């Protein structure tokens, strides 16, 4: 027996590509009419090399010793390459691009990895806040050349390859000599996301939220987050920060939105991300004087969650007063007639999601206990009362209902 949705999914097996797809595809083979021949590619490479040489000269002329970018419209900017090219060698790294043009989705690196380097370590010297990044070359990379996408802001950075076993970002470059690269925002693809207050005035907060992308009633994420942020004022404006075309990566740790009040950036907000116990949290870095993230009840930012149990409709917090009802994953699965082991938690303690109800790092072999993983349901207050009454739990709103059998 299978569920209806599974049978529907299997119908997709009837969808086939075009009958002559392979023939179309063969037309794209290297050496076919649609692609340059090896001679043409060689010629192109020679031209590219010459262009690169000329561009490098122009580029070095275009930058002063402090590394300031050329003025907009300077012809040198058009010659700035689109990707940082670096070769990770056994004893030293070789940088082919002293400057790079920022792309809409971030800074592109092409890494020729001759020594199984772990990744590229970068720092931004002179920034008020220490900024150090490790852009990892993916595990199991099938290629010696890898593409790395970074959200490094425009400006002068220092980069070096990291060996497979060495250097955490906090340990610096070690024996490697860092190489300077100027990230130039020629096309205006970077939206500044620096708080207007000094670091000593900044506070980090986590605000509970559902994942806006999963919420059927969600509007634009920036609108949702203004609703979610305790302390946000009516006149505050929220919008994306950073690279305008950057995709969402839940593990980037970066802030995706900024909150502007009276022309100053007063808070930065990361999109909702998985958090301990599978709640969704908004990561907030705010100027303390803005009071953002500091006021209100702990659940003030609760949005609708995607979780639901039979017999209890989900409440839309945008149009009604709602109550958060916490149930254990085991109880949630039980109420839905499902097997908790079938859920999206990992038995791999290094899987990156903190699910063992233990402080990280998890001990090897840590097994998650479904009764210690709370989910939040969002119900109307009357439904919540009925739920608490039916299952004899929830002495307070913050108490997780465990051990429920339908």
């Amino acid at each position, binding site marked *: 027996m299978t569920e*209806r949705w599974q049978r529907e999914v299997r119908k*997709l097996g*009837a969808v*086939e590509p075009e009958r002559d797809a392979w023939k179309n595809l063969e037309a794209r083979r290297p050496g076919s009419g649609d692609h340059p021949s090896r001679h043409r590619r060689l010629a192109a490479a020679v031209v590219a090399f010459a262009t690169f040489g000329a561009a490098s000269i122009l580029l070095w002329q275009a930058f002063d010793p402090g590394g300031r970018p050329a003025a907009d419209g300077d012809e040198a900017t058009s010659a700035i390459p689109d990707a940082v090219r670096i070769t990770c060698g056994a004893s030293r790294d070789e940088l082919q691009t002293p400057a790079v043009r920022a792309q809409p989705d971030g800074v592109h690196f092409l890494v020729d990895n001759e020594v199984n380097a772990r990744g590229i370590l970068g720092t931004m010297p002179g920034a008020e806040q220490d900024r150090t*990044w490790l852009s990892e070359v993916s595990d199991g990379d099938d290629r010696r050349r890898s*593409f790395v996408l970074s959200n490094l802001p425009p400006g002068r950075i220092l980069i070096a390859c990291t060996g497979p076993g060495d250097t955490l970002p906090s340990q610096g470059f070690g024996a490697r000599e860092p190489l300077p690269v100027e990230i130039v925002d020629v096309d205006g693809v970077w939206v500044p996301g620096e708080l207007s207050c000094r670091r000593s005035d900044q506070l980090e907060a986590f605000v509970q939220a559902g994942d806006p*992308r999963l919420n059927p009633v969600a509007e634009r994420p920036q609108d949702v987050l203004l609703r979610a942020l305790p302390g946000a004022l009516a006149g505050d404006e929220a919008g994306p920060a950073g690279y305008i075309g950057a995709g969402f*990566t839940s593990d980037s*740790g970066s802030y995706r939105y900024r909150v502007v009040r009276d022309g100053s950036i007063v808070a930065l907000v990361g999109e909702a991300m998985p958090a301990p116990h599978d709640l969704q949290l908004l990561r907030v870095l705010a100027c303390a004087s803005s009071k953002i993230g500091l006021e209100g009840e702990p659940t003030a930012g609760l949005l609708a969650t995607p979780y639901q149990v039979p017999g209890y409709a989900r409440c839309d917090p945008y149009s009604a007063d709602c109550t958060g009802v916490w149930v254990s994953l085991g109880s949630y699965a039980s109420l839905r007639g499902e097997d908790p082991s079938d859920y999206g938690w990992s038995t791999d303690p290094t899987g990156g999601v903190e699910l063992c109800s233990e402080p990280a790092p998890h001990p090897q072999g840590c097994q998650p206990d479904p009764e210690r993983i709370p989910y939040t349901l969002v119900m109307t207050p009357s439904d919540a009362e009925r739920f608490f009454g039916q299952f004899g739990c929830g002495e307070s709103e913050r108490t997780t209902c465990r051990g429920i059998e339908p």
Partner: protein
Amino acid sequence: MMAPVKERAIDERAAASDAEPVSAGAEARHDFERVYRDHGPGLFRAIFAYTGGRRDIADEVVAEAFARAIAHDADIREPVPYLFRTAFRLAAKELRSERRRPASEPDMSADPPEVAGLLAALRRLSPNQRAAIVLRYEADLPVDEVARRMGIAAVTVRVHIHRGRARLRELLGAEEVDEA
């Protein structure tokens, strides 16, 4: 305090650049016609689902992924994961660029009638949820292999599957049915 930012590396995008192959001119290592016969339709379906039923993008992306794989044959150890990851990335890029363009809505009236309902439901899922569901339940791949082909962590795949499955239950029904 240092604030390290772990960023995701995206490997085969090198193939998307204008860079020369690492080992240009090396002998062909893989029989791509056979790879296409064995895996092309499955790859097409995965991208078809990922894009919410966009046959035009799926056709183009699959062809482009194979073209790049053929061009970089000598550098690829395992062509199938390479093809899937490249195709997913190309499709994501295409969807992103479409979002930036003020384009008209794609024509969904051309959906194959037998899967029109499914596609309507899949479009309510995120692209990654769609891909994970289809690779897991249509292609019958284990989670680890789904993760390998999507180029993401297995735990992330599990989350996508869990959420996608819950959504499809709501949209298409959870009651058990006899297999035809």
